């Protein structure tokens, strides 16, 4: 088990190699293989998290090479926590992907699984690695897989994917340049090593340029306003399982790297005191929240609405980073988890609705609660979490963010956070209202009769179980958020905040 940090990456990677081989002879075997691989990864990530909690950080030297020359995987509370989120959400999405994949991409399911596993490999790799260049490689693995996965979606996905590719490449190249600049002045690529060398060089212009390149590159990758332009198209047109994974996990991993670079590679003193980056981040985040939510209100397409809401939610998380105090970062990290669960549930729910109804037009969701009672219940719970209604988890992260803003004495963010709850309520209740209280839309109009009870026509269990599991997780995470904070998040907050 001492090799578990590398195993959680290797297992999906090797499986992604075997998927096409097996799929060539027997298509049906791919699905169990994918689910098994991700299941093992999830269990391993839990094991790693457990041993971080009991024994402290884990250091793993790849190939036995000493850092800073060799690649070191270093897992502490922060990335252990991220690894659990990434592996579990991708496990659930993988379970879901079978039936939705059968409908959305019947003849390409084998390729889909192969790339899906590569995406998870890349994401997990980004999370566990302690080496700046290694991180770039995993970033590109994940991104390339994401471009391909988006492209196999419906009509319009091609352009979305191409735009994402162009923007994503710019982001990744900026990151790479930043690594190069740091390498020029320090000669090191190891994060831990860098963090020890850098404080003496904080006034060097090269270091500052590198920092700026990192932030811009990562902002592009996570879709932070105003660099979000690729995001709505990509999320809307991708297959539903992919949208769920991208929205809930991939953007969060970029956020994680941002936190890592701002507060571990560079120290908080640099990021908070020496340069005005936190102020800039909070302003962009604040605008992102309002912009994303106002755009979401006017969207008729359910998935596009969720995509714009993601822009806003990234704003929440970055706002917490921008506040740069304990409460704010607690809120941020909690929101990373909460948003992963919530957005995952919403996108999977939207996928399920499309699976049965064949449309994502919000105005045509009438009487959905009779047709799909469980999906709609889960969707409603997730929507309430987005709005921030207790005891769902979304409330607690919002609460901490507000506390953080009050602690920082920045009232404008308090107002924006509160206002955003209401904006969220507007577009989520639009969906709920249509689904629960409106008669059937255009499609089923003829068969609509109030007295007559429609038969329930739920999605297959394989799709329903992940949705319900996420909905249950939303409530449980909410109730146990205190426990999560006291055992994990409070230790994940970088020192010196």
């Amino acid at each position: 088990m001492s090799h578990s940090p590398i195993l959680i990456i290797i297992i999906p990677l090797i499986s992604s190699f075997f998927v096409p081989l097996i799929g060539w002879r027997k298509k049906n075997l791919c699905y169990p293989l994918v689910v098994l691989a991700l299941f093992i990864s999830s269990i391993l990530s839990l094991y790693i998290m457990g041993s971080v909690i009991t024994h402290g950080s884990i250091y793993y030297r790849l190939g036995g090479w000493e850092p800073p020359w060799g690649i070191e995987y270093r897992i502490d509370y922060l990335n252990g926590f991220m690894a659990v989120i990434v592996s579990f959400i991708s496990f659930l999405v993988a379970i879901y992907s079978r039936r939705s994949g059968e409908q959305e991409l019947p003849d390409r399911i084998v390729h889909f699984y192969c790339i899906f596993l590569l995406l998870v490999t890349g994401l997990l790799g980004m999370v566990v690695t302690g080496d700046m260049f290694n991180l770039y490689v995993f970033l590109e693995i994940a991104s390339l897989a994401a471009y391909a996965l988006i492209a196999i979606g419906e009509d319009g996905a091609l352009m979305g994917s191409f735009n994402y590719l162009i923007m994503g490449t710019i982001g990744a190249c900026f990151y790479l340049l930043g690594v190069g600049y740091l390498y020029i002045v320090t000669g090191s690529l190891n994060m831990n090593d860098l963090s020890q060398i850098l404080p003496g060089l904080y006034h060097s212009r090269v270091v500052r340029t590198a920092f700026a390149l990192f932030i811009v590159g990562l902002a592009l990758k996570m879709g932070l306003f105003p660099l979000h332009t690729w995001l709505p198209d990509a999320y809307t047109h991708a297959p539903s399982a992919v949208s769920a994974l991208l929205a809930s996990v991939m953007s969060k991993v970029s956020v994680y790297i941002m936190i890592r670079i701002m507060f571990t590679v560079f120290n908080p003193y640099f990021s908070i005191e020496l340069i005005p980056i936190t102020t800039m981040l909070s302003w962009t985040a604040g605008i992102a929240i309002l912009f994303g939510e106002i755009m979401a209100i006017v969207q008729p397409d359910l998935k596009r609405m969720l995509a714009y809401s993601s822009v806003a939610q990234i704003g929440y998380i970055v706002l917490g980073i921008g506040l740069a105090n304990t409460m704010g970062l607690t809120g941020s990290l909690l929101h990373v988890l909460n948003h992963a669960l919530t957005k995952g549930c919403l996108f999977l729910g939207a996928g399920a609705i499309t699976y049965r109804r064949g449309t994502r037009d919000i105005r045509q969701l009438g009487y959905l609660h009779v047709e799909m009672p469980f999906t709609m219940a889960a969707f409603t719970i997730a929507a309430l979490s987005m709005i921030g209604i207790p005891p769902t988890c979304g409330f607690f992260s919002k609460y901490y963010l507000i506390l953080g803003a009050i602690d920082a004495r920045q009232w404008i963010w308090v107002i924006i956070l509160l206002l955003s709850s209401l904006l969220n309520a507007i577009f989520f209740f639009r969906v709920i209202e249509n689904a629960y209280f409106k008669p059937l839309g255009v499609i089923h109009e003829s068969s609509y009769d109030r007295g007559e009870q429609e038969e329930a026509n739920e999605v297959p269990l394989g799709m329903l179980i992940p949705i319900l599991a996420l909905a249950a997780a939303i409530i449980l995470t909410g109730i146990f958020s205190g426990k999560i904070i006291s055992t994990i998040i409070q230790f994940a907050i970088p020192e010196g905040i």
Partner: protein
Amino acid sequence: MIEYIISKYNYWIYIVLMMIGFYAMISKRNLMKKLIGMTIFQTAIILFYISIGVKRDATIPIVPEHSHEAIKALEYVNPLPHVLMLTAIVVMVSTSGVALALLIMIYKRYKTIEEDEILKLRQEAGA
């Protein structure tokens, strides 16, 4: 001033190349041109990395097995940036590969790779 520019000419070249690529990616409406811009952009970064490993009058970093002389770092080129670029080139080639595949698909679907025309086609389809 001129001396300052010339003494750091490798950085200037990389910056100029990068900006050309960046310009093409942002402002060209033809998708193939965008892709070309992207490749220039990436190549510029590779050049940057390669140039930072170079030392004047230095040789390749291979140390004879039974050499008894002390190893002087100044005599060898820094191999690490070059090794990194080997990986980066692989990444970039695969990015170009994916992008080209996407372009082919886009062309098959819309019979054009002009962004404006595609947008128009899609709007018509939507309306």
